[in-house]
């Protein structure tokens, strides 16, 4: 970060540019190259079953859902998915902080983790990535959908954030009611001669 802003700082301070370019260049250029290198969204060496199990466990703690995104790092539409999450249609509801645990599973060139996908009823296919599976907090499959269902009218190679948001809203967990567990905890505390450790948190 410091290396990124260093040229700007020097420029604004009116100082002369740093001396021998051949000495300075590697220190500045290398981090920039690293920062610009496309981040791999799909972990190509991860154990897919373990990834999904961890997401289900985390979702169960917060009574929310899991969205499995089956895809590949070199697929154009898959690569666009992280940016799609920042579309206005997707940020009104905090889908990926409050409502879903998102897990990316690498299917490579449709030669990886297909057995895991099949076990979840998912059918990732050429031209239809990413493929999505919604799981409940017990790991039960609630919905499967191909990217083609979310194709943008203007650009079929892109995902429509509105369609994606509608799908996520349809399958998100119903909001829990705070009163029954609150009253149950008070009753239990009274019965056991204990106190209630009441804490407010959020899935994020």
């Amino acid at each position, binding site marked *: 970060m410091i290396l990124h802003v260093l040229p700007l700082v020097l420029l604004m301070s009116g100082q002369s540019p740093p001396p021998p370019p051949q000495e300075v260049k590697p220190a500045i250029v290398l981090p920039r190259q690293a920062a610009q290198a496309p981040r791999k969204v799909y972990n190509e060496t991860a154990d897919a079953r373990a990834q999904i199990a961890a997401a289900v466990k985390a979702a169960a*703690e*917060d*009574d*929310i859902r899991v969205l499995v995104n089956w895809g590949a790092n070199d697929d154009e539409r898959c690569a666009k998915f992280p940016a799609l999450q920042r579309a206005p249609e997707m940020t009104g509801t*905090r889908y990926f902080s*409050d*409502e879903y645990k998102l897990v990316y599973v690498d299917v490579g060139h449709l030669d990886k983790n297909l057995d895991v996908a099949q076990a979840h009823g998912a059918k990732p296919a050429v031209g239809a990535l990413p493929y999505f599976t919604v799981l409940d907090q017990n790991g039960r499959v609630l919905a499967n959908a191909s990217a083609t269902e979310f194709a943008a009218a203007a650009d079929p190679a892109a995902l429509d954030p509105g369609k994606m948001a509608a799908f996520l809203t349809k399958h998100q967990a119903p*909001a*829990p*009611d*705070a*009163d029954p*567990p*609150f009253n149950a*905890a*008070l*009753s*239990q*505390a*009274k*019965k*056991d*001669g*204990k*106190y*209630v*450790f*009441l*804490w*407010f*948190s*959020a*899935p994020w």
Partner: protein
Amino acid sequence: MASKDVAPVLAKEFVNLKLDFDRAKGAKEIEKRYIEKEQGLPWFAFLDGDGNALIHSTGPKGNVGFPAQPDEIAYFRTMLEKVQKHLTDAEIAFLVKSLEEANKKT
């Protein structure tokens, strides 16, 4: 609080209740019974069986949230001592130490 070591110790004194402040219907209203202004998350309170708060996480310097700094951990100790009925002094010391160690790891 969910750790294997800490949870059983806390369970001697408390019934644990986590409410999702943003998603759970009625959670904000429940918090308002104990403090008027939203405090940020996490926020917690120790209640008796009738729903009365004996002490909550907003101390003299504000909400201690997840107690990490020495003064926040000290306030958490004060909270435990305020309601101490089943916990021994050694167990309170253990809980405090677990927070100190968690803070060192982060």
